[in-house]
């Protein structure tokens, strides 16, 4: 088979525009691109198999985007769209160039990181529908969204941190420069007037910087203090503010020591840690927003007059007619009113074989419509749908997980009171016991606060996490939640789902040697005309089978072709006229009925992923318990379990059963890693201590899981566990380093021996040591 010149998919034999293109839409798209002189696109692009192929939708009935268009000044309108089908940077270039060549377009800019397109045009010259259609005709899917509903809070926070970091960095550099002269002056006999001048200049730089760059810490400290708790930000804020205040006092009274440099560098290092922490989760946040916005903005409603409108799901009402195009997820729970098709319900119940649907069948939100467009009458919306029910289960289960307290917070909870106590004792000790003046006692107490300040401690966790997430990201594993690595490291039990997780979720022909060769070839040549998953499996089983002409497809039933002695049929039992006798019916099957021969049965099974058995063995070798929980029937689950070497398996589990089973394990003190993909797994993913899900999983499952992995292999599970364990070891080493450093400097500080020079050197040295230790994670094997 040849690949389509536009979308790169295989060209089916019955294509009207064979052999160059797979369908008329692709041919038209290619012409458009060539006509605009942009055909360099085809040399420059690299197709990503994980992304939606660039095949234009067959029926391009006009869609009204009016609801999402926003007015701007001077008759310019803007539309924000999510782009599906962005393969690489060449796609960005193509979309921007095509739009830029349309009359009336003011600007079109695709953000490759967030996969969003901002389109601006002059309202008098063109309109949204035709602009969007020009890009949709190339095969991209554009979904309008309201930028206001997306969570801008995280983005704003990140920018604030970056600004604070820039200011603190500037101040730290300059104040350090001045401090070096002051220190040098101590030994070379700088006059007190010059020293005071340098102190004043330092104060001038440091005080505004401390006031501005410290805000993220002050805000968090005040919030927890109001709630009656302590966190790491309380000693940080206290140390920075007191050090600045005391240094100002010293400067004003002409004293020899000012700690402006310590205060500002402390802030700078802490902001670096905080920013890294934020940044690591940024990518995952964007991905999550993309999924949620897609689910939340797109439902195509067919009006009474036949016009189509994309409306937000909140505006759907029972009784409306909603269109589900072939290959699209059905947006609502409802009843089919027009069209026959096959619906992939694997996300709901784990079934591999698509269920045929016809007018009158009930369908559920989140299922995938495979072969032909369907019109669905909305039965339930929003809170009443099965999808919403599952989301509620997820939320309930997630509340349990929120109780996990990150290691850094547990340390902080112990550390903060100790630091405060120590500083207070130092102050009282020097003032009352030694009899020093209170200013000097306060000075020493503040020095204690500065050196104990958890600079290394605050860097220890984020530095390791950033490097661990970066390493995993390069292997195609996206870690979404901050404490996921920590929870992964403590895992002692791994629970797998079957369909789509342990298996590929794609049926394969079984026992093909036992089947008559002629029948197999005939069936494969008929199947080549269909896109049904079982038909594709037949085609894969017979490479190079000729493609039969004149094949007629009845969606949901089967295929038929006129043969020499009568009609040859390939499809379900009923389609081939075979009595339903319960024999051999454990699993997906196809029948071939020929006029002059006995019917032939093709049985299919979902094969385990290539490395499933190896991964299970490797997990067992590392003394992890492995279990299998599936919604599928007993014999099928048992067979898969034996094949990959899992002894502990349970079949026929409803979503609730899986949660109960996981809760039992948790009650027995096990730390469970759940690996699953289906919508039915989503509550279990949320209920487990930590969860992984393949990138082919349902949106809800990807949202519920702590990490998402790409690819056809299960090996990422091992990699994630390995990296998490190493990261955990490094975090503990870093804590040890930080405590060792404190063990040396605290006695010095309490004894009143810490000058600004000692504080600066000790602080920088410990931060660098912690970061250097974290960098080791980037290299070497995971286990």
């Amino acid at each position: 088979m040849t690949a389509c010149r536009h979308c790169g998919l295989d060209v089916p034999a019955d294509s009207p525009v064979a052999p160059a293109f797979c369908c008329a839409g692709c041919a038209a798209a290619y012409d458009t691109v060539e006509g605009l002189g942009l055909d360099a696109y085809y040399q420059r692009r690299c197709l990503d198999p994980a992304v939606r192929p660039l095949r234009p939708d067959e029926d391009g009935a006009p869609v009204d985007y009016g609801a999402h268009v926003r007015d701007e000044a001077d008759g310019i309108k803007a539309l924000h769209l999510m782009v599906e089908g962005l393969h690489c940077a060449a796609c960005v270039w193509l979309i921007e160039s095509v739009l830029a060549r349309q009359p009336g377009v003011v600007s079109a800019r695709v953000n490759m990181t967030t996969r969003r397109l901002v389109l601006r045009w002059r309202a008098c010259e063109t309109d949204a529908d035709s602009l969007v259609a020009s890009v949709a005709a190339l095969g991209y899917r554009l979904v309008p969204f309201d930028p206001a509903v997306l969570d801008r809070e995280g983005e704003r926070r990140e920018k604030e941190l970056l600004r604070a970091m820039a200011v603190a960095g500037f101040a730290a550099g300059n104040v350090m420069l001045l401090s070096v002269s002051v220190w040098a002056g101590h030994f070379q006999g700088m006059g007190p007037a010059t020293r005071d001048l340098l102190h004043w200049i330092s104060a001038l730089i440091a005080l505004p910087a401390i006031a501005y760059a410290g805000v993220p810490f002050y805000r968090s400290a005040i919030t927890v203090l109001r709630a009656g708790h302590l966190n790491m930000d309380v000693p940080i804020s206290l140390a920075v503010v007191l050090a600045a205040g005391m240094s100002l006092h010293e400067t004003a009274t002409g004293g020899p020591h000012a700690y402006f440099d310590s205060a500002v560098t402390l802030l700078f290092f802490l902001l670096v840690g905080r920013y890294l922490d934020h940044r690591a989760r940024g990518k995952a946040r964007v991905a999550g927003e993309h999924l949620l916005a897609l689910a939340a903005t797109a439902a195509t409603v067919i009006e009474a007059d036949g016009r189509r409108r994309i409306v937000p799901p909140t505006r759907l009402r029972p009784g409306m007619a909603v269109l589900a195009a072939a290959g699209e997820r059905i947006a609502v729970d409802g009843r089919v009113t027009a069209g026959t098709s096959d619906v992939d319900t694997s996300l709901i119940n784990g079934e591999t074989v698509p269920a045929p649907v016809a007018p009158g069948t009930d369908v559920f939100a989140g299922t995938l419509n495979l072969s032909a467009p369907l019109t669905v009458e909305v039965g339930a919306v929003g809170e009443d749908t099965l999808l919403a029910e599952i989301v509620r289960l997820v939320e309930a289960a997630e509340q349990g997980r929120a109780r996990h307290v990150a290691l850094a917070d547990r340390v902080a909870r112990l550390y903060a009171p100790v630091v405060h106590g120590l500083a207070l004792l130092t102050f009282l000790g020097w003032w009352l016991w030694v009899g020093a003046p209170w200013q000097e006692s306060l000075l020493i107490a503040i020095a204690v606060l500065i050196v104990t300040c958890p600079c290394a401690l605050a860097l220890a966790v984020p530095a390791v996490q950033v490097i661990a997430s970066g390493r995993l990201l390069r292997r195609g594993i996206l870690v979404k939640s901050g404490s996921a690595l920590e929870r992964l490291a403590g895992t002692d039990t791994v629970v797998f789902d079957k369909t789509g997780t342990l298996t590929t979720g794609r049926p394969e022909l079984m026992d093909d040697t036992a089947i008559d060769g002629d029948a197999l070839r005939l069936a494969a040549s008929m199947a080549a005309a269909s896109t049904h998953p079982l038909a594709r499996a037949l085609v894969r089983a017979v490479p190079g089978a000729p493609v039969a002409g004149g094949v007629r497809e009845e969606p949901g039933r089967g295929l038929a072709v006129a043969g020499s002695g009568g009609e040859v049929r390939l499809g379900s039992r009923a389609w081939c006229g075979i009595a339903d006798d319960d024999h051999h019916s454990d699993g997906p099957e196809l029948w071939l009925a020929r006029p002059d021969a006995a019917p032939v049965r093709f049985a299919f099974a979902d094969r385990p992923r290539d490395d499933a058995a190896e991964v299970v063995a490797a997990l067992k070798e590392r003394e992890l318990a492995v279990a299998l929980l599936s919604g599928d029937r007993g014999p099928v689950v048992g067979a898969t379990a034996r094949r990959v070497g899992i002894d502990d398996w349970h079949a026929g589990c409803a979503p609730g059963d899986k949660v109960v089973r996981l809760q039992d394990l948790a009650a027995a003190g096990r730390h469970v890693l759940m690996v699953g993909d289906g919508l039915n797994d989503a509550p279990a993913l949320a209920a487990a201590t930590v969860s992984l899900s393949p990138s082919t999983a349902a949106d809800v499952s990807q949202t519920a899981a702590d990490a998402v992995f790409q690819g056809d292999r299960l090996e990422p599970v091992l990699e994630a566990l390995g990296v998490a364990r190493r990261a955990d070891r490094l975090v503990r080493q870093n804590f040890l380093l930080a405590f060792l450093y404190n063990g040396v400097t605290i006695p010095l500080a309490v004894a009143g021996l810490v000058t600004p020079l000692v504080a600066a050197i000790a602080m920088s040295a410990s931060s660098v040591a912690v970061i250097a230790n974290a960098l080791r994670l980037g290299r070497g094997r995971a286990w």
Partner: protein
Amino acid sequence: MTTLLYLIPAALLLGLLGLIAFLWALRSGQFDDLDGAAHRILFDDEPGPSQRPREDDPT
């Protein structure tokens, strides 16, 4: 020592310039799409009439 009186302001001024340049870049959205910008340079060989819009609306 009197050189300090103009050397320190000069150093501060240069540092401030860098800081302002960075804050300007941040505000004007140059840190919004780090992946896209890296690849864009490979394709921008034939700028059209509105190929280079103002990046004033970070999304």
